[in-house]
């Protein structure tokens, strides 16, 4: 299952001994690029200051008068840095990235929604569609809006439940990493299922929000 090995691997650095920018191969992951431990919980203040520090060394603004080859390296490395920061600063995106790094892409239909959620999903989609269709105001619209708000609350509660589950699994992941072990496959499997389900919930909430906004 585990494709990446941390053993006997030379640590990557975007700067060589002279502080010059090096090309960043695609095989270098975001954690390695920023020289951060591959953990679910990272110190966000450290991440931010690392991002600033790297930006100050890599940004194209500071290479305007440099030779073309250095300008190109700066542009590519900055794009790479921005992608890394964007992914790692958000706990969910970070979790998805780490899980995918460890155990392969999460496909959209990786996990089917659990049966107990099916009814709620159906109701929420229905409420969103009804509310979008009903153009005239009045009591009917009020009622439909109330339905939609109820659906929103239900899924927001689901979302916070998910978040708690993620935090717990993330903690177990990090414990293993701290102990110098691979994350247990049971934790990886659970994370995959939680993250897969999360897509459904996010999609529904997005739909509901859009319906509320459009009206």
């Amino acid at each position: 299952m585990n494709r990446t090995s941390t053993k006997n691997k030379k640590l990557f650095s975007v700067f060589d001994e002279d502080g010059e920018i090096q090309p960043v191969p695609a095989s270098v992951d975001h954690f390695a690029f920023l020289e951060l431990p591959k953990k679910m919980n990272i110190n966000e203040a450290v991440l931010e200051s690392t991002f600033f520090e790297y930006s100050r060394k890599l940004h194209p603004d500071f290479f305007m008068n440099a030779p073309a080859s250095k300008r190109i390296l700066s542009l590519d490395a900055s794009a790479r840095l921005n992608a890394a920061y964007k992914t790692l600063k958000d706990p969910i995106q970070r979790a998805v990235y780490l899980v995918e790094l460890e155990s392969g892409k999460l496909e959209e239909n990786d996990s089917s929604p659990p049966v107990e959620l099916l009814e709620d999903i159906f109701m929420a989609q229905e409420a969103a569609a009804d509310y979008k269709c009903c153009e005239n105001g009045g009591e009917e619209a009020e009622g439909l809006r109330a339905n939609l708000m109820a659906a929103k609350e239900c899924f927001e509660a689901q979302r916070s439940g998910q978040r708690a589950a993620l935090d717990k699994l993330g903690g177990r992941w990090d414990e293993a990493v701290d102990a110098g072990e691979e994350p247990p496959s049971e934790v990886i499997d659970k994370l995959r299922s939680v993250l897969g389900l999360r897509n459904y919930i996010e999609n529904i909430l997005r739909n509901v929000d859009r319906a509320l906004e459009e009206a």
Partner: protein
Amino acid sequence: MSDIIGIDLGTTNSLVAVMKDGSPVVVSPEAERSIVPSVVSFRSDRVLVGDKARSDRTDNIRNTIYSIKRFMGRGYNDIEAERRHLPYEFDSSQTEAVFVKARGRTYGAPEISAIILRELKSRAEKSIGHRVQRAVITVPAYFNDAQRQATKDAGRLAGLDVLRIVNEPTAASLAYGLHERNRGIIAVYDLGGGTFDISILKVKDGVFEVLATGGDTRLGGDDIDRALADYLIEKSGVENGVKENPEIVGLFVLAAENAKQDLTDNEKTEVVVECSGESPLSFSQTLTREEMEKIALPIAERTIGPCRRALKDAGLATSEVDEVVLVGGSTRMPLIGRMVTEFFGKEAKSELNPDEVVALGAAVQADILSGGRTDMLLLDVTPLSLGIETMGGAMSWIIPRNTTIPTSQREVFTTFKDNQTGVDIHVLQGERELIKDNRSLAKFVLGIDPAPAGMARIEVSFLIDANGILSVTARDLRSGKAASVEVQPSYGLTDEQVEKMLLESFEHAEADIHARQVLEARTEAESVMAATMRALRDYGEDKVGDEERNVIKQALSELEKVMDGDDHQVIRDKIDALNEVTHPLAERMMDNVLKEALANKRLTEAMSD
């Protein structure tokens, strides 16, 4: 170190600023205002710019062009609503870009902007005492790719090397942050003559990080003037038929502008419109601030939606904003100040002159680019999501809005039919689900070697640079060769049109043409170098044999050596030499990548020819 000037190219007014003794200052020639109204008047014997041209809005009304910024990077059919209020003529025969007519000649929008830029350039040259060639030009943060490109074209037409396109609100934040490098979360509310921007930034340790931006590029003080003009026209009782006369409308718009400005400090003003032409008219009326605000309110309120969305995108509540800064002449209206203060729940600031602050910030950014200042860094974002057309006219997003730039994203495309030799890719910007509701940027045709359906693997890299401008490169993953990308911009001028304008421009002597050939050879050299370096990186430098790698590196460094020279032919020769030595590598990459492509890889499928 050569000077780089900072230019605020506005809808209504423009300014240029330079660095003096470590501080940005607005260039203001003796006996003249520092503000240059963005107005160009074509008289029979000469061309006037700025204040001199502004008075021609009554005397030479059909040949005096203003508000040209509204038409940058737009098409003729986009501007129907705006055209009605403008007394000058448009060329309806060209639809991909806006062309105006004056004294029998047509001018593309960037050509008019270039005339204004030339005036600013010459002012800066007089002020610092020597020639200037490089500039930073600001644009509304919410400008799309075509509008940014058009601004760059204008700079080029004015003989300027535009080193950077900077967003106006972020430029303003640089001017504000010059002396205080830890300001927390700031919201910059920028309402200009024709555009509105809201940017939310985090300012910490000298890093100005834009968290989110929003806006409307067709919303500004101009719109209030026009609404007010319509109101005054109704009140004047001029008859139908006369009402639509562009000259009459132009006079009322001018009167409305003046009245609105008067009402900033006064509770009421006298509006006078007189015309002795074919339809004589004499109108005089008292207008109160309250009356004016009633008309302005619905327009001013349109700025609140983007503010709300930008905050949401930044993941912040209004209470988390530490400081609100007002930028742009239109924020002088008391109504705007009240509204912004109410929305954010804190007093909006305007310590720096809201007309000058953007140009000052542009000069600061110019200073950073020239290496003069290293303690400040601006990290901006792309304002609009970028995507491509997929089946059924739906939008498939590649780069979401508010992504920090520079940013790049790769997508792999394949073919549907056997021996298909091209794949069409349609690139758009916008937030809507259907492509018909978004802004078309360009169409690309990828050249493909004939192969069975689904075998082709073309990797396309979308790169948005620090100017917020997109460039696209493509690579055939089977052969490793660069794939051809034929770009057809949907709006704005083609390269050929810009070329033609340059040639037509009487100011361009042979020396300039030569300089341009050199510049173009350099640009090409740079892109070939980038492609080679990326190919080496992706293939793995260690996998290339020592000898071959040395030959390639040698060719790279030879090209780099001649790049700064003045002979474009020499540069082109070295480009050819580099292409020659990288050929075997490209061919060998085929096998390697073919394996990878056959592995389980998700592909984005494109529309077929």
